[in-house]
């Protein structure tokens, strides 16, 4: 992004009214709502429980991938600690109910607030660093959390290496807890939440915050000289993506009824990254698709007796092909489709592809 484009982007985001595109926006909203409803309902009629479970896992991974991709694309930062928030949400929710005697809704709210405070504190410490150091620090912070749950002193709370069984009764935020365990109903819920989070990220990317984040990514020094606070937007961005990771974690623990140290592990973080790279990082749809593709691909390989190989094949395909995709200005199937459409939807070249 050139400096001129950057300024235009900021100016446009600050002065946009959107009044002239009303019919197109209305049509988009209608199509979006139809898509949202169809996606939530149609698969529950045609797909088996197993496929729905697999799809739900894919959606949750997509939600995590979305958080990683947003930070990569908007701020040029790679977070390798997504699993610590994802798994941490499950642990805090379980501890809140079993040890603190809270109702499911209260446990969810308390866990969310703790994660918010943790994200803000960690973010305040690490968003000032350069992207490479940020990547290393998020990895270290994630490993710290995964070590913490295994501490002997916390075993009564965390269950050590065995993890925790989470028995949710009653309602959670007004939703009957039983619905979370039903594959069809959980698919619908996960679909709606994922789409809404995707839309939220899409809106943030087009807001002033998104424009400022991209401008900081391009030239932080220039932004500082221009009088912009470069710390706060990145901190907000980091906290926002952790909120998405926490939502994924809450949904996972409510669905699975179990949380273990594996959910905090580095493999969850790397799988998230791979899913984001499979789908592409420059939009909201790509990472979600990436999560679904990853989930089904992993099962496909697993069914053929090469479960572990599937992850690695995805890793190899993605990590070794990213540079080539970037050269062709495409990072994933969504971008490839856009390019195939003959430039009707232009693929904005992300910073990570330069």
């Amino acid at each position, binding site marked *: 992004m050139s400096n001129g484009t950057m300024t235009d982007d900021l100016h446009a985001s600050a002065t946009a009214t959107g009044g002239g595109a009303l019919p197109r926006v209305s049509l988009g909203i209608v199509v979006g709502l139809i898509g949202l409803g169809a996606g939530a309902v149609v698969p529950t009629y045609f797909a088996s429980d197993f496929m729905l479970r697999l799809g739900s896992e894919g959606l949750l991974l997509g939600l995590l991938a979305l958080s990683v991709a947003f930070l990569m694309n908007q701020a040029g930062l*790679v977070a390798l600690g997504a699993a610590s928030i994802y798994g941490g949400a499950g642990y805090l929710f379980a501890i809140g109910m079993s040890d603190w005697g809270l109702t499911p809704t209260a446990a969810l709210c308390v866990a969310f607030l703790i994660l918010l405070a943790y994200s803000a504190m960690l973010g305040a410490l690490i968003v000032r660093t350069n992207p490479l150091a940020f990547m290393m620090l998020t990895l270290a912070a994630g490993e710290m959390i995964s070590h913490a749950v295994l501490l002997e002193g916390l075993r009564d709370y965390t269950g050590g290496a065995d993890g925790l069984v989470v028995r949710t009764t009653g309602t959670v935020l007004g939703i009957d807890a039983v619905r979370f365990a039903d594959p069809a109903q959980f698919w619908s819920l996960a679909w709606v939440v994922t789409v809404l989070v995707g839309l939220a990220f899409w809106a943030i990317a087009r807001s002033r915050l998104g424009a400022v984040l991209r401008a900081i990514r391009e030239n932080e020094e220039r932004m500082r000289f221009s009088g912009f606070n470069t710390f706060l937007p990145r901190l907000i961005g980091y906290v926002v993506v952790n909120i998405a990771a926490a939502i994924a974690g809450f949904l996972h623990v409510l669905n699975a009824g179990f949380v273990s140290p594996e959910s905090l592990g580095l493999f969850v973080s790397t799988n998230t990254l791979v899913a984001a790279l499979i789908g592409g990082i420059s939009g909201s749809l790509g990472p979600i698709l990436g999560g679904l593709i990853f989930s089904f691909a992993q099962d496909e390989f697993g069914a053929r007796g090469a479960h572990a190989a599937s992850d690695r094949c995805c890793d190899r395909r993605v990590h070794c092909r990213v*540079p080539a995709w970037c050269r062709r200005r495409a990072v994933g199937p969504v971008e490839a489709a856009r390019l195939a459409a003959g430039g009707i939807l232009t693929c904005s070249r992300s910073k990570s592809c330069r």
Partner: protein
Amino acid sequence: MPSRNAPGQETAAMIALLIANSLALASLLIMLSSGLALIYGLRDVINFGHGAIYMLGAYLGYTIALVGGFWLALLLVPILLAIVGIAFEYLALRPLQRRSHIEVALVTLGLGIILGQIIIYFYGGEARSVDAPKILSGSVTILHLSYPVYRLFLIVTGLGSCALLALWLRWTASGLYVRAVSQDPSVARMMGINADRLSLLVTSLSTAFAGIAGVLAGPYLSVDPGMDVVMIVNCLIIVVIGGTGSIGGAIIAALLFGFVQVAGSVFLPNLAALVPYILLMVVLLIAPGGIGRGRVLS
């Protein structure tokens, strides 16, 4: 009745033991993190696959030690891993020379995961143990303190290789070129320094060091599938504490890390696993650029 200075002697012995154990752990970490810092200094790349290369060294060391003994492993593994380093340079680093740091870091992370999985595929998931050679087994008494010979060997090897590295960087022409390229690549190229050849040398040296560390870790720690993640995370903490790209900082940070880790396991056994991370946070709060004032802050 105990003598009056017995408690003092006990304390001194405990401190000496603490320092010796810290040095033993730090020796391994110095070999790994200095290699990591070397590549970063020259290529501006954090090699996330370094832990997997160390693990490869450990498993190759285990295999060769079974056939030809520990000394043969210590001789062959660095050579084999230097070749792996050359392949890594040609297949991963050079094609990605013009790509962003993050992209290259992701590629090295992916390659590290692949390498780790290949090792697990061939060796399985269980931990292996390597016996120390006869000459290095047993203990010696130093200052009324019984201490394993192998750990002393580890300290001597680690600190010796660290000294050799420092001497090479300080007193040889190629070391001078490495420092020049890491400070200003474009000016160094204009002065006629072949940065690609230097990069090849540094990458192979870095992976050879990782190989030595892997072989030495066999009898000291254990050879297991999780060793790559543990070590790469530790090394990343050290590199950040030391200041990315600063070899001196990495060495000091490794010594500090070793001491904190060992002291933590003695005085705070319940929190030992978290002590390095607490150290990292404290250092970042006090000196965000790290001890060596590296390029951590943007």
